[in-house]
């Protein structure tokens, strides 16, 4: 008992309990206090764990169940910390909101993501995995629009489906190995491994499975989008790092993930959707690092996930501030907002510099680790695509977001600056973007493995500056000569078109056809039954044929005939 009490407590519980508590608290001030306090308590619990290990395990010998809900090691440690930081910043960002459902769901969602990261067995992982899906969808639905309701349903189908695949894979794996442990899985485990891989891949927004992200995130509430960008995809990246590190296929999946969103983001008008494509792009870098699978690659993926939560959150926050004040995130309706929202513009520029990997900013360090890992393994083509994608990131997240929202043509909109709490949240995130880029030694100390890599060499800095400056120069030139595609209000189709249009219509058509078919069969059966009924009625009813008075001779004749037949059959049987 004493051992149990002195055992470290899972920091995820702080957020989970806070979430359930907030659901019961009607007073918004109390809820906000809990929302701010919970990440601090989680951080304190996180700091109490000094030794790597698995704590609070539950073993039920009768059914051979061994649950490890709190595994604290190098990999889970860094992911948990960034989730705690994100929960705290997000709580500040949404201080002005008075939505009990969102407050509660955001906390439970963050706690579930952390719980998944600490899960040492596949069953615990499954529970938290599904809990993230169920809670996060409320952040989409609370936007209250018809589009958000439908997008939320599509999101839920994909994410619950991901959990089902996870569970199926876990059960299959258990039948093969006799263990529920969540360790390296690998695709060599066959169907079980593939099911788990696909389950993780849906949440990591693998190509062709990615559209839920661009579909749902831009339709969520303003703070909901910020919260969503922090947890789900990074949790999936963690799961891949834990279960499938070193799988070559991830290198190529990640490579595609970095490249294809670049093209879509160029022509997208909704800035929150642009950032959603950017989420995909940055996830690609992490997935490549995991696919490389060396200690440098895994460190790179972990570092980039950590940095991404902050700079991507910052960009979503700045666009959210614009949306709060102007009511839109459409590039066509924005521009010149730096005049009235200078602090939001400044923080947005810091986020843009961080995601673009300018020296002294966080991604310069984290992305370099991944690129070095790729180059070390001699993947020259993948390396080239990642450099291309780095220029692409600059285009859509580094330039497009701040330029079209805060600069470009003057939209004549003069909204108020964002509320103080939003500015504070953005300020903390901006500080961290620079802090991680400058104090990279501290950043390295959080990574799962020891790091021997110096990002700030003369040649590296010059090379990166060349890449970025040349790309910005190209932007200016293309704008000047009119070759940059102008922002246009339109819908850009993605892979989800397949099930939102043709498959939907096919389903509706099949439904209509089956309705008609069933109706026709039903009518046919009904008419047969009615005919039979009529015949029987005609035969047996009081007015029927059997009831009619017939001459006695006819009946005698029938009786004699039946008797003869019976005698004949009896004779045959006897002989």
């Amino acid at each position, binding site marked *: 008992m004493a051992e149990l009490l002195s055992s470290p407590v899972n920091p995820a519980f702080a957020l989970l309990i806070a979430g359930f508590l907030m659901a019961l608290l009607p007073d918004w001030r109390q809820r906000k206090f809990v929302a701010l306090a919970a990440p601090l308590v989680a951080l304190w619990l996180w700091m109490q764990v000094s030794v790597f290990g698995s704590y609070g395990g539950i073993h039920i010998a009768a059914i051979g169940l061994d649950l490890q809900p709190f595994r604290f090691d190098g990999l889970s440690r860094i992911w948990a910390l960034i989730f705690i930081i994100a929960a705290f910043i997000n709580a500040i960002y949404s201080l002005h909101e008075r939505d009990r459902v969102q407050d509660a769901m955001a906390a439970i969602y963050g706690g579930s993501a952390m719980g998944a990261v600490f899960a040492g067995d596949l069953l615990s992982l499954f529970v938290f995995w599904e809990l993230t899906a169920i809670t996060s969808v409320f952040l989409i639905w609370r*936007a209250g629009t018809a*589009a958000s309701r439908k997008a939320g349903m599509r999101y839920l189908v994909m994410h619950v489906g991901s959990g089902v695949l996870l569970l199926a894979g876990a059960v299959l794996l258990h039948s093969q190995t006799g263990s529920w442990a969540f360790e390296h899985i690998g695709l060599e485990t066959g169907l079980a491994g593939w099911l788990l891989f696909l389950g993780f891949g849906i949440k990591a927004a693998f190509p062709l499975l990615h559209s839920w992200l661009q579909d749902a995130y831009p339709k969520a509430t303003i703070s909901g989008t910020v919260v969503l960008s922090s947890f789900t995809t990074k949790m999936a990246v963690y799961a891949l790092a834990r279960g499938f590190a070193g799988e070559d296929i991830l290198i190529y999946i990640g490579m595609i993930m970095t490249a294809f969103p670049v093209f879509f983001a*160029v022509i997208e008008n909704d800035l929150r959707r642009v950032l959603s494509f950017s989420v995909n792009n940055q996830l690609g870098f992490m997935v490549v690092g995991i696919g490389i699978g060396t200690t440098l690659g895994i460190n790179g993926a972990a570092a980039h996930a950590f940095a991404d939560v902050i700079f991507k959150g910052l960009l979503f926050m700045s666009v959210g501030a614009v949306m709060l004040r102007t009511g839109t995130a459409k590039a066509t309706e924005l521009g010149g907002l730096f005049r009235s929202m200078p602090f939001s513009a400044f923080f947005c520029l810091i986020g843009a510099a961080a995601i673009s990997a300018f020296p002294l900013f966080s991604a310069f360090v984290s992305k370099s680790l991944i690129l070095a890992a790729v180059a070390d393994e001699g993947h020259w083509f993948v390396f080239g695509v990642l*450099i291309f994608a780095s220029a692409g990131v600059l285009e859509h997240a580094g330039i497009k977001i701040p330029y079209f929202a805060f600069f470009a043509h003057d939209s004549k909109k003069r909204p108020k600056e964002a509320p103080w709490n939003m500015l504070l949240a953005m300020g903390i995130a901006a500080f961290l973007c620079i802090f991680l880029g400058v104090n990279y030694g501290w950043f390295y100390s959080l990574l799962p493995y020891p790091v021997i890599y110096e990002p700030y060499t003369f040649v590296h800095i*010059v090379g990166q500056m*060349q890449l970025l*400056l040349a790309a910005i120069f190209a932007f200016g030139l293309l704008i000047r000569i009119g070759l940059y595609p102008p922002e246009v209000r339109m819908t850009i189709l993605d892979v989800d078109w397949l099930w939102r249009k043709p498959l939907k219509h096919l389903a509706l058509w099949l439904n209509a056809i089956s309705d008609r078919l069933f109706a026709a069969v039903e009518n046919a059966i009904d008419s047969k039954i009615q005919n039979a009924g009529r015949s029987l009625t005609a035969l047996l009813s009081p007015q029927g044929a059997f009831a009619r008075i017939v001459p006695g001779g006819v009946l005698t004749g029938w009786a004699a005939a039946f008797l003869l037949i019976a005698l004949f059959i009896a004779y045959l049987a006897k002989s």
Partner: protein
Amino acid sequence: MAKASKPASKKPTADKNTSSGGADGKPDDGIHPAARPFLWLGSHGVQRNFMWFIGVLMVISIAMNYIKKPYGYFEWEAAIGGYAIFGFLAFTFAVLMGWPLRKLTGRSEDYYEDEGGEDDG
């Protein structure tokens, strides 16, 4: 005789999300005080010519390759201005591909209207 009551003031109320009037009585242009020193960033000339400033910086960064010869894992990384050429071409390619991609995938804004449209949400 009872005074005729004054009609209610028709003074427009400021949108709660837009800047309120200046305290000094001057007409409010909605500019944030912290932004005033940077208003030149919004001028057409600055925005149009900003690229030349970046261009000069780019040339300087390329010239730095002569101070210390670049090196890298792959051959093109060791070329003078290799990253600048790659960055320029990559960016231009990504942007120019937007034209055919928009033709291919662009639809009217109410394309998904049957499900409530793609509104700001």
